[in-house]
């Protein structure tokens, strides 16, 4: 019989905080934390004292006062008598709009360019390297300004569309490309089901979501059938019907028609206006970030061992399907994490909007409101809070997606 005796328990001594590796890291972390808190407290009290000396105070009262200025792109009702808070909301929605659009186009552009850069076709792959290197190595602010300047200089002013012999004319009579923006036909509902226009479109969206569930169910059914009988039933016309019939019927009930832009007075009116600043910002953010995403995609693809491609090819899959069915799904695991930070970059870079007069949150709350009210610290704190929240939200959503596609270990 053996007895295992515990080693004699050493009593805790203060010096162990430094000498014992078990405690040392805690000691240093605690010291760092205390220093950080002291530093923040010092700066905060310094700020408070100096503000008091200058006779200023921190107050968010100004958010309720009328803003007094107009904004050229408002997704929600706004006029110059609306509050500064409402102006901030207008800015937030504009930021989200351009960030959302740019994320989508940058991803499409990046995936295409990244895949093509690995193409065996010399010309195509060189063209793509050229794109990546040009766009990645010039600051995005410069791209925004270049695109905006070219747009205002090259496209005709609305004035040019006027007269009997106009210098410019609309494309197909329904699209107008001007140096103030692009005007396209907009949908109009003759007998909407809800008084609030937005609600009608939400309904359309819901129907589309329903259709997508329907078509998913159909394809599951087809797969089950295929597994049971070895033959996949032809379903494409059913899929088409599921997607289109409900929406078309709904829109017909609501009396959809198209409103065409027309020159009226100084500007075009009617239809939808996509403003020049939005286009410049959207386009610049897309091509710039697209170049980075292309590199992420290339890295992801090259991380997949060549054996996978060869094995797939030897099964008789064509190169396109090898890419879509075998390589890209595996590459996603490598691509997603850096893609998250590219999306964050797009959102943060959208704050360069002010360079072209796009009314994002930095331009409204952090620009005009800040300047007209003089509430710099308050506005900057709010801005930081906004960007932090948005960035964390994007990371959160993308991490969920990342967990869904990452290697499942069973």
């Amino acid at each position, binding site marked *: 019989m053996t007895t295992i005796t515990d080693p004699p328990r050493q009593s805790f001594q203060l010096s162990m905080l430094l000498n014992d590796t078990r405690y040392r890291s805690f000691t240093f972390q605690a010291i760092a934390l205390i220093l950080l808190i002291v*530093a*923040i407290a010092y*700066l*905060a009290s*310094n*700020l408070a004292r*100096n*503000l008091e*000396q*200058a*006779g*200023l105070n921190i107050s968010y009262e100004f958010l309720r006062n009328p803003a*007094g*200025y*107009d*904004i*050229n792109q408002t997704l929600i009702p706004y*006029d*110059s*008598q609306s509050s500064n808070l409402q102006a901030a909301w207008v800015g937030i929605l504009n930021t989200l709009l351009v960030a959302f659009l740019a994320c989508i186009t940058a991803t499409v552009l990046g995936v295409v360019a990244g895949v093509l850069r690995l193409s065996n076709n010399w010309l195509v792959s060189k063209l793509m390297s050229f794109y990546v290197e040009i766009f990645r190595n010039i600051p995005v602010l410069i791209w925004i300004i270049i695109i905006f300047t070219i747009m*205002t*200089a090259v496209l*005709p*002013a609305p*004035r*040019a569309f006027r007269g009997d012999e106009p210098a410019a004319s609309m494309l197909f009579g329904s699209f107008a490309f001007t*140096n*103030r923006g692009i005007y396209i036909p907009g949908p109009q509902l003759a007998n909407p089901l809800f008084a609030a226009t937005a609600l009608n479109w939400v309904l359309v969206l819901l129907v589309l979501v329903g259709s997508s569930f329907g078509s998913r169910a159909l394809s599951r059914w087809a797969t089950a059938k295929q597994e049971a009988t070895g033959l996949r039933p032809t379903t494409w016309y059913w899929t088409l019907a599921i997607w289109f019939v409900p929406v078309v019927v709904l829109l017909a009930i609501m009396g959809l028609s198209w409103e065409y832009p027309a020159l*009226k*007075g*100084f*500007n075009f*009116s009617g239809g939808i206006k996509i403003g*020049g600043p939005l286009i410049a910002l959207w386009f610049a953010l897309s091509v710039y970030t697209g170049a980075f995403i292309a590199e992420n995609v290339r890295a992801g693809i090259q991380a997949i061992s060549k054996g996978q491609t060869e094995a797939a090819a030897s099964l008789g899959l064509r190169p396109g399907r090898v890419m879509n069915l075998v390589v890209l799904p595996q590459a996603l695991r490598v691509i997603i994490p850096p893609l998250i930070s590219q999306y964050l970059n797009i959102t943060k870079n959208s704050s360069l909007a*002010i360079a072209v*007069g796009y*009314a994002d949150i930095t*331009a409204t709350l952090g*620009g*005009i409101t800040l*300047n*007209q*009210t*003089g509430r*710099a*610290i308050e506005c*900057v*704190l709010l801005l*930081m809070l906004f960007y*932090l929240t948005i960035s964390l939200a994007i990371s959160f959503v993308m991490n969920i997606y990342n967990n869904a596609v990452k290697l499942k270990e069973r």
Partner: protein
Amino acid sequence: MKKSVFLGALTVAGLAAAAAAAGTVDDVKARGKLNCGVTTGLVGFAAPDANGEWNGFDVAVCRGVAAAVLGDPAAVEFVPTTGKTRFTALASGEIDMLARNTTWTFSRDVDLKFTFVGVNYYDGQGFMVPKDLGVSSAKELDGATVCIQTGTTTELNLADFFRSNNISYEPVPIETNAEAQQQYLAGACDVYTTDASGLAATRATFEDPAAHVLLPEIISKEPLGPLVRHGDNEWGDVVRWTLNALITAEELGVTSANIGEMAAGTNNPEINRLLGTEGTLGEMLGLDAEWAKRAIMAGGNYGEIFAKNIGEDTPIGLARGLNAQWTEGGLLYSPPFR
């Protein structure tokens, strides 16, 4: 990352407010240079010439103050500011004074806490349109696209004007006059609106100034003047009385041409007090006796400065109008030197 941004903001705000404490006269003397905030470039008011030398109506005020305090009209560091950055620059102490066609308003004085020391140009907001647009009144501008400089009173007046006339417009916010000019000329906006003096100055630089007209409406009062921070009254006095010295010199007929002779003593006691041969005004201000003489010699009296930079013989061609001496039916009225 976020935390460091936060700390940075706190530090900047903390340090900035610290720098704003009193004693500007001594700071300027110790530095040997006056930091003066001006526009990023508005010919006639403040713009660097081909040699990089700043010139203009607002610049002359900076030079006058530098001459009075430091004895050298060239001892000025000009800091270009936009409509948006100017107040932060002044509040943070980056500049000692701002002379950038800035409108004296209630909230800038009371809420932003700046002291406007006077008015060097009585102005109002106007509109400029291309002649071939065929517009003859601002009330016909319904639906127009309007270029404005952001961070200005102009922006707010514009919203008020269109609102009270029940017409709509689309604003194009722009940071500097140069950009606004470029957008306007490219036809990205139909109208450019800012202070009428600024419009005249901008139009004078166009290739074909005659192709653009200023509309008759003046939609606001824009008293433009130099300003300093609240809380340093000695410094405020120096800038205020330098400006008043330039105005009084014109009223009393003291010019850069005859100042040498007048400084020898005249039989008008006010001229003598102004030029320091009588009384102790300079001493009261914390400067020497000849401060005002130097300020006037820097660029001439108010009238000379006006005529040289923006007057009727320059391409800008502004008439004195409201900016004539009160004795000539204008609004310029300096308190007495006594």
